[in-house]
């Protein structure tokens, strides 16, 4: 099997709208360690990953270097790219600094620190057969499509619905092409799979991820993360 060069783009630029350097949740500490450090560690420790690109807020570069990279990952090298106004701008900036040898690109939210080794393995392994895949989990609730008056128009069958997460994984040529075509008309695009869906003919495969792969958004997520970490520590194989 030919070894493929796998790069990861970790999006850690935070929200542009309400930014104060110290308030970015990526730097929030759980068990004395910033959330971003947990995220980076997952990929750093995985044998498939060859390099990591961190997309950060330019104003936070010092904090990222002093409180995350130099403190926890001193012996490692990372490429840095700066975030843009929206998520897709940040991804595009990350794609622009890819190593010339990169074959596969994984794109991951910095605020998803609980991604596990198996999820990373499965997306990379899938890319040997397919050009695009994302991790997701079957939804547990019922979802409705509504009209402009918030009246229900349609209930999609639950078995056909997945909640999609990151990492989202692509062959380099495909994702770069999708972004090059779509970057000027993607204001409504919410994830990288959607870029591929809209601007290429490629089908994106969903692979089963873990319900523990949460995105830190609300305060309860922080307590959930704490409990998951405690559980993983207690039951470490």
């Amino acid at each position, binding site marked *: 099997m030919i070894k493929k060069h796998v790069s990861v783009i970790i999006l850690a630029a935070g*929200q542009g*709208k309400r930014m104060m350097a*110290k308030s970015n*949740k990526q730097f929030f500490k759980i068990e*004395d360690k910033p959330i971003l450090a947990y995220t980076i560690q997952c990929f750093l420790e995985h044998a498939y990953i060859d390099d990591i690109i961190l997309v950060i807020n330019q104003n936070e570069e010092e904090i990222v270097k002093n409180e995350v990279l130099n403190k926890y990952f001193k012996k490692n090298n990372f490429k840095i790219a700066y975030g843009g106004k929206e998520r897709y701008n940040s991804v595009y900036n990350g794609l622009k600094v890819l190593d010339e040898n990169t074959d596969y690109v994984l794109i991951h939210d910095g605020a998803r620190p609980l991604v596990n080794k198996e999820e990373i393995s499965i997306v990379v392994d899938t890319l040997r057969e397919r050009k695009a895949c994302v991790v997701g989990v079957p939804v547990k609730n019922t979802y409705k499509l509504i009209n402009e008056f918030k009246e229900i128009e349609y209930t999609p069958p639950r078995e056909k619905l997945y909640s999609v997460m990151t990492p989202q994984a692509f062959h380099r040529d495909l994702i770069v092409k999708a972004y090059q075509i779509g970057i000027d008309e993607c204001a409504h695009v919410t994830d990288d799979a959607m870029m591929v869906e809209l601007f290429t003919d490629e089908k994106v495969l969903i692979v089963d991820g873990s319900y523990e792969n949460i995105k830190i958004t609300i*305060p309860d*997520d922080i307590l959930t993360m704490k409990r998951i970490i405690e559980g993983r520590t207690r039951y470490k194989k």
Partner: protein
Amino acid sequence: MKISKVDVILFCTQCNEDTDHEVIYFDSEIESLTCIECGKTTGLNHSELLSQYKHDWLTRIISKPHRMTEEMRKNLYDFIKNLPARMITKPKRVYNEVEDIKKIEKD
């Protein structure tokens, strides 16, 4: 034992938008997260903080002789040199800790 506060932006399910949240740590343990806009708090009930402090205080008393012995073993000179100042300032340090907790409970 150290009580510290940090600010972080999270999505408040009451305000329905991203807001500043004040996070209180007890040493490195998260005790609570409170939305600064609406006051919604997630985490430990503040009224339990003082009872936790009492429990922690008992543990500290019991372990004090052992901890002092270890300090003497590591550096007897520094231990003797610092002891008078520590004895004089101890009541004030304890008072400050209790006041911090009472202030948090009041908030």
